[in-house]
């Protein structure tokens, strides 16, 4: 693996008596979308705020693009972009004016800021709306201009804190497309999200954090393989239920769970191929109406890592 571009060791943050981070170790390789996943209050935003110099850590070390965030915050600010949870724009100005002002404040110079704003608007296909006041924008439009504003300096590392929270599904897909475009530029993106599907869609590596520390890390595929696949079977009638469950238990070595005629087995490791399962069920004389092997979602991964289902539901909401 290439040298990490973001590196934290034993990062801690206390807000009074509340510990938001309790010793976080992260190594983020360059040129990837790195997902930071965790329930509300897990420490995602605190991590982003420390890495983007907005908050000082209570302990530990954080290095971004070679600069210690506590000792060289100004150097860090020159190589990062931040798009926080709210669309941080001046509503009384147009989108283009917002970008120009932020560009000038990012040390691009008057002409540089103007050119960069035009260039980004054209590239993200937002020229049509650029000269309307931000107060007239839809949520998705504000969020995209907000995203562009974090790209003005062509950052080496881009922090996106819940970039699509509160957006409708269509706008969300638009923002996802923009984020994919960025990685093509070689930008490293640290993305926090409550939406597991979002991380699954965008990230090539994921860190799951809970209670302020890392509890799992890897590619979404690897995380999923840790808990194996699900076999879903729907039997023709309740008479066949017991027989089908016996066959499935023998094949996978796991105890199936039934909900009416619907049986689910969470398999670990290798799953027998589908045709074999069908043959064995048929040989045992069980009629099946539907059968499938389902990849676990990150949702399942999350559930198995962080525990209670109730907590996860809340996270999904």
């Amino acid at each position: 693996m290439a040298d990490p571009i973001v590196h934290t060791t034993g990062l801690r943050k206390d807000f009074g008596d509340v510990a938001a981070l309790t010793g976080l170790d992260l190594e983020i390789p360059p040129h990837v979308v790195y997902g930071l996943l965790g329930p509300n209050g897990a420490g995602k935003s605190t991590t982003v705020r420390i890495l983007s110099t907005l908050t000082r850590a209570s302990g530990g070390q954080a290095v971004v693009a070679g600069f210690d965030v506590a000792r060289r915050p100004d150097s860090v600010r020159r190589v990062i972009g931040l798009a926080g949870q709210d669309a941080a724009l001046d509503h009384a100005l147009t989108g283009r004016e917002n970008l120009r002002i932020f560009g000038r404040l990012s040390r691009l110079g008057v002409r540089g800021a103007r050119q960069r704003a035009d260039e980004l608007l054209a590239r993200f296909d937002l020229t049509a709306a650029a000269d309307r006041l931000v107060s007239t924008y839809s949520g998705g439009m504000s969020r995209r201009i907000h995203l562009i504003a974090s790209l003005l300096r062509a950052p080496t590392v881009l922090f996106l804190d819940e970039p699509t929270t509160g957006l409708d599904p269509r706008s969300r897909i638009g923002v996802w497309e923009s984020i994919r475009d960025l990685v093509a530029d070689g930008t490293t993106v640290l993305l926090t999200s409550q939406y597991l599907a979002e991380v699954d869609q965008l990230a090539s590596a994921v860190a799951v954090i809970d209670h302020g520390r890392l509890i799992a890390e890897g590619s979404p595929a690897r995380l999923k393989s840790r808990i194996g696949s699900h076999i879903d079977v729907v039997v023709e009638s309740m008479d066949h239920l017991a027989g089908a469950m016996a066959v499935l238990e023998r094949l996978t070595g796991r105890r199936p769970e039934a909900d009416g005629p619907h049986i689910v087995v969470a398999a670990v490791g290798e799953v027998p191929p589908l045709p074999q399962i069908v043959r064995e069920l048929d040989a045992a004389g069980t009629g099946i109406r539907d059968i499938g092997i389902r990849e676990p979602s990150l949702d399942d991964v999350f559930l198995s890592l962080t525990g209670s289902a109730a907590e996860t539901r809340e996270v999904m909401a």
Partner: protein
Amino acid sequence: MILLADGWTLTLRKLLQLRHQPGTLIAMLIMPMVFVVLFGFVFGSAIAVPGGGNYREYLLPGLFVMTAVPAIATAMLAVATDQGRGVTDRLRSMPTHRAAVPLGQTGSDGLTGLFGLAVMLACGLAVGWRAHNGIGQTLAGVGLLLLFRYTMSWIGTYLGLVIPLPTADSLAPLTFPIGMLSNAFVPTAGMPAWLRVICDWNPISATVAACRSLFGNPGVPGPDAAWPLAHPVTATLLWLALLLLIFVPLSVRRFARAGL
């Protein structure tokens, strides 16, 4: 250099806002006229100036100061809005000079203040107010008014950084009535003792008294008045210097460290 460039960019931002919201400028034109008619002719018809003199001559310096007081609310709301929307965090994550944001906020407000004062002076001249003490003292009075308004902006900037937006929203309308606890519209001599002490020591009263004295308008308190009113120019300068010494470093520090 960077500080000035960034400060100017943030000032420009406010000017662009005004271009999109011409209503703000129109309100700035109409408000002084409403004040002059309301206080000069509606209330003024029933108020007598101690030691004689025209009430509108007495009133206008009070209005010059009073129209600068809401700069506290303007700055507070602008800063609290930026903070609430995350704009402040965005600026703090960029290589922008740490002091530029409060400087731009107060600088731009100073420019609109200059415009507002010009309108107010024109209104005053139209209803018969005059400065009688020559060009030097007149300019000194105008300078004092601008410095007063600039100080109010810094107070508002700090309040906006520490007060969340919804609270700031409900506090903003209080600035004007609090400003009226002064000698701006009526002499303090007739007030109950406890209130008179508050009004006499209100920095607004010192500034109003200083303007009356510099412009040569009636109602300048005698040497037996409370100290700030008996020495209004000195008292005003001391007040404003003290307030700036408190609120400029507080605002700059608060901006650089906000959210830590």
